[in-house]
């Protein structure tokens, strides 16, 4: 299996789960709850989530697993799908 594909699946799955988590945060930010403290906490967590997601996107963009495999595996052959014709 292509290593890039594995990391893409991890990326997609994490993004999906984190989007659901952000929805939970937004729900608790907006809903009429008990007092203002849960909303303040949700506001802080939403900011943190945005920051972490930006960091996650940068880390994902900078990541090239195929390149690492190529550097560390003697006699490594690139998958046909990545080879230029």
């Amino acid at each position, binding site marked *: 299996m292509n290593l890039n594909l594995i*990391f893409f699946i*991890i990326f997609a799955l*994490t993004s999906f*789960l*984190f989007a659901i*988590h952000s929805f*939970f*945060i937004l*729900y*608790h*930010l907006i809903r*009429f*709850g*008990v*007092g*203002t*403290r*849960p*909303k*303040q*906490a*949700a*506001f802080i*967590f939403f900011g*943190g*989530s945005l920051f*972490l*997601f930006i*960091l*996650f996107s940068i*880390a*994902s963009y*900078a*990541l*090239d*697993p195929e*390149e*690492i495999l190529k*550097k*560390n595996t003697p006699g490594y052959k690139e998958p046909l799908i990545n080879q230029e014709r």
Partner: protein
Amino acid sequence: MIQFFTRIFKESHFSFDGKGDNEIVHIFLYQHWITLIAPLFGMAAFLVFPVIPLFFLSGFIAEYNLEGIVLFLVVVFYMFMWSSAFFTITMYLLDTWIVTSNRIIDTKQNGFFSRTISEMTLSRVQDISVKTEGFMQTIFSYGDVEIQTAGTVDKFVFKRVPHPNQVKDKIMHLVRIAQENEGSSGK
């Protein structure tokens, strides 16, 4: 939009869903902060978890050009930690006990989208007991306040609330006022 966000910080700390216009909030309780410390300490210990292999395996990581993968995995780990911290703190902040001028409201949050809200009229309260158990509860002055009403088997329990004796005294005082008001309006 800006107004909405500023309202979050300006609105009363004692606001809640279904609050009457003339209703005065006398007691607004969360569990004692010490109950939040244990799970947060556990999480703080986990936060250090990715740093340890980074410290010991830095040579190996640099040699095999694994910085990218390590950074990616560490960020994913912190995202999950952030989510669980949000869950813990939200559950703590949404578990509340409110005593107003005419009723007691117990809000129990069971999950992000599940909660149980129980309510009782102050004038129906018969007796209140306080339970403080163990070293921690005695030292940090927190415990359970159990409220028994007329005609019901189940008790209302304020779990691990700070200064339970003061809470009990204040509720008893409010109950007396509520019963007097009910008596005078019934005449």
